[in-house]
């Protein structure tokens, strides 16, 4: 179908909605917004074109992976340091896509606009596509990577590890609240701001490190994202066109931005900067380009005349970004037996790169990484966690440690609400809690959940052991001849504790020293 016929068909597709007269048809989701019936169309494909386009893309991606790459044993030739981090990344991105699919289901129901609904449907199937693509990559690496342990059970382990578990606190935001809140979290923030640094720039890092499978998958994923960003823009423009919506819109936008930033920036920053073996750009550089300049400087600024402003805590986020990934990675490496991947110690070359890309890095993190390398052999009988007085308490809202941006300049804010103590890592998280405490107040952070577990017992109970039943999946190095076993951990006798128990009922405290 071409030209005028296509436009005619598309116009008729947009006329499918009608005003029900036999039942009252309120949306099943609470909608504190008015949506205008007419909007600009973000997506002018019919189902027919969509299927054709996606099939071509699928054939290219899966064909390349199953033919050339697998036969040439390319996954096994990729940098081992880099490949390890995919064990943690892929279970998280799979869930992000899955949560996105749920978001679009809500939008179809709640946004009474047939034009937008067509776009949401295509995105709904896209998100199933992305879940399948990323699960396929995870399975592909299980089959072909040098070390399959961690890939083969990553989805099972993701809910037991404190960092991957914290991803839920951000990604659930795609569909936990009202549908527009979900669209703001997903389409306006996560997809428009963060998918470029994740699916485009990060794939350059992957390719530089010999990993062709991830770019092949992620770039195919990203080819759908432009439509999702258009969906987000059209949704946002539609909501912002009704003046009564603006106060609530800004509030939901503020919390959506902070919810995504609080997890994604520390997480992606750590992934980006600490697993490159053959080094290129930094996350800070990618962030400034894609999120600082493109998203905040262009995309959001253009909405200001319509009454949508940069998120309330944007300046704090921009200020924190320099250190978030480093602090997250320090904690991640310090708690390496609680993870399910191998974390390679940094080399002198890495040290130089970090100091060049993040001036002042060595002063704050250098000593830790030197100690980490020294403790990487089981014969040391020591865990890097011993470098700290205790594990940091976790934030009730984002579930991340209250140590950001950098341990020496951060405090946990402790509050008691309805008889229960809560810690918050930042103004943004505290603000989100103050708006709707009932959505957070009963959850249990990782350390509350596992308080009192011996570390060795915990590792066994969550199943973070290799097939021999005694060697840890996680290791603090890539050396096959110095693998830590559960016996090594048991000898150390480390116990997981909940630091919040011993903190005062209110006030600000430094939690990692």
């Amino acid at each position, binding site marked *: *179908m071409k030209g005028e*016929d296509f436009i005619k068909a598309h116009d008729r597709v947009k006329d499918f909605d009608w005003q029900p007269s036999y039942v009252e048809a309120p949306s099943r989701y609470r909608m504190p917004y008015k949506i205008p019936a007419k909007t600009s169309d973000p997506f002018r494909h019919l189902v027919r074109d969509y299927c054709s386009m996606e099939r071509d893309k699928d054939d290219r991606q899966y064909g390349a992976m199953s033919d050339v790459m697998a036969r040439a044993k390319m996954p096994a030739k990729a940098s081992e340091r880099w490949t390890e981090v995919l064990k943690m990344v892929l279970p998280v991105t799979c869930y992000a896509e899955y949560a996105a699919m749920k978001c679009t289901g809500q939008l179809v129901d709640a946004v009474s606009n047939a034009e937008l609904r067509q776009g949401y449907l295509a995105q709904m199937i896209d998100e199933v596509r992305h879940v*399948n693509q990323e699960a396929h990559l995870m399975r592909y690496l299980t089959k072909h990577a040098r070390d399959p342990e961690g890939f083969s059970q990553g989805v099972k382990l993701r809910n037991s590890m404190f960092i991957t578990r914290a991803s839920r606190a951000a990604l659930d935001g795609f569909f936990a609240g009202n549908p527009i809140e979900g669209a703001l979290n997903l389409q306006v923030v996560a997809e428009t701001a963060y998918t470029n640094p994740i699916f485009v720039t990060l794939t350059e890092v992957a390719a530089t490190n010999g990993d062709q499978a991830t770019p092949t998958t992620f770039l195919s994923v990203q080819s759908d994202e432009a439509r999702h960003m258009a969906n987000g823009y059209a949704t946002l423009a539609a909501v912002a066109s009704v003046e009564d919506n603006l106060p609530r819109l800004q509030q939901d936008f503020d919390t959506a931005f902070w919810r995504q930033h609080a997890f994604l920036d520390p997480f992606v920053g750590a992934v980006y900067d600490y697993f490159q073996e053959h080094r290129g750009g930094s996350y800070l550089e990618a962030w400034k380009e894609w999120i600082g300049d493109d998203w905040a400087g262009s995309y959001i600024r253009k909405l200001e005349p319509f009454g949508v402003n940069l998120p309330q805590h944007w300046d704090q986020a921009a200020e924190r970004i320099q250190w978030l990934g480093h602090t997250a990675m320090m904690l991640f490496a310090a708690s390496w037996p609680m993870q399910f991947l191998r974390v390679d110690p940094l080399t002198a070359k890495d040290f130089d790169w970090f100091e060049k890309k993040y001036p002042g890095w060595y002063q704050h993190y250098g000593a830790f990484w030197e100690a980490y390398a020294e403790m990487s052999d089981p014969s040391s009988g020591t865990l890097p966690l011993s470098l700290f007085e205790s594990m940091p308490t976790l934030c009730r809202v984002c579930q991340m440690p209250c140590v950001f941006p950098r341990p020496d300049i951060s405090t946990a804010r402790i509050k008691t609400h309805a008889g229960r103590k809560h810690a918050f890592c930042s103004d943004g998280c505290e603000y989100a809690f103050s708006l709707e405490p009932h959505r957070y107040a009963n959850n249990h952070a990782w350390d509350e*959940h596992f308080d009192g577990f011996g570390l060795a017992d915990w590792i066994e109970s969550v199943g973070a052991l*290799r097939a021999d039943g005694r060697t840890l999946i996680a290791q603090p190095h890539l050396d096959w001849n110095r693998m830590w076993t559960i016996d090594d951990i048991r000898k150390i006798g480390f116990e997981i504790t909940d630091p919040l128990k011993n903190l005062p009922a209110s006030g600000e405290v430094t939690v990692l020293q």
Partner: protein
Amino acid sequence: MSARASDTQVKTARDFTYIKPQRRRLTEYEALTVHMQPDHLAFDRAPGRIEETEWYLLRDDGTPLWDPASTALRAPDWFAWRDPAQQWQRTYVRHQEQQETALERATEDAALDGSLAELDPRWVRDVLCGHYRAWSFFEYAVFRAMSPAQREALSDTLGNAICFQAFDHLRHAQDVICYLVEIEHHCDAVDDGLGKRNWLEDPAYQPARALAEAIMTCRDWAELMLGANLVVAPLLQQVAVSELVRRSALPNRDAVAAQIVLTVERDRRRNVAAARALAELAVAESNPDAAANRNTIQHWLDDWTRRADAAAVALAPAFDKVPVPATTHAEALARARAATVELVGELGYSSPLGGAA
């Protein structure tokens, strides 16, 4: 200190170890689908002393993100459900692309060989525009309803299957539009607005519209999946589409309309099989709530059957407008009723249309 893990006698798994396959080996469908949705009751329940459900962010009304109350049915493990067709996105989109390509070519061929120009204007105006285009609104309503249902479904396997069904229905609705746009080049009888007018005003379509609006407000994803596929599909969609459009199309020299419906029937068979698998899971012997579920499903089937049957009965005037009749409304309705009774009977349910459990 251990030696290298691969030096041990234990073979390291080269596939996912966290999914229990339904059959002997893990299928690609299972590997790419199962446990993508958090399962706070079992798979994702972390060991520990805290027994409460673990949600980090509740819905704004304080309820959990996936709520057992989203369906009246109870099952110990919704994640055990498997799509009998084993569809994942790639296989599903490939299938739909093949169907759409076939329809596009068939339409193009019919335009070029003069078939579209030879269509009886009464067939075009009264059946394709007046009836089939009106029916496209019903399909759209099912798409609308299935979209939030996939969000609420209590497992990934169920959610994905419902998501694909949503797509099926919008595809069907759009195919009707695309076909009429092409016919407009060859026949002056096209009145695209007639379908919506009939849908909104013609008494023959009001029971169908009432049902469509009820479907859009159905809050129970399992009820929707069972009602739409075990009742509406074999009864109402059979009469409105298979009998009235597909069966009549060839006598009225319209091969394309027949082919559109054939693709829809292929999708329908997949969705009926999925609903049957859901009904069977709900009353499995191992389910302590099987008896209550059976009663609930019987109640749903009865309720949906009454409404779908009323809608199918009301379509009689549409049959009278077929220029070269292939069947009567009474015959079509009788066949559809018998098929519906047989389908629910195979699952052990009675039907208000006759037949005992």
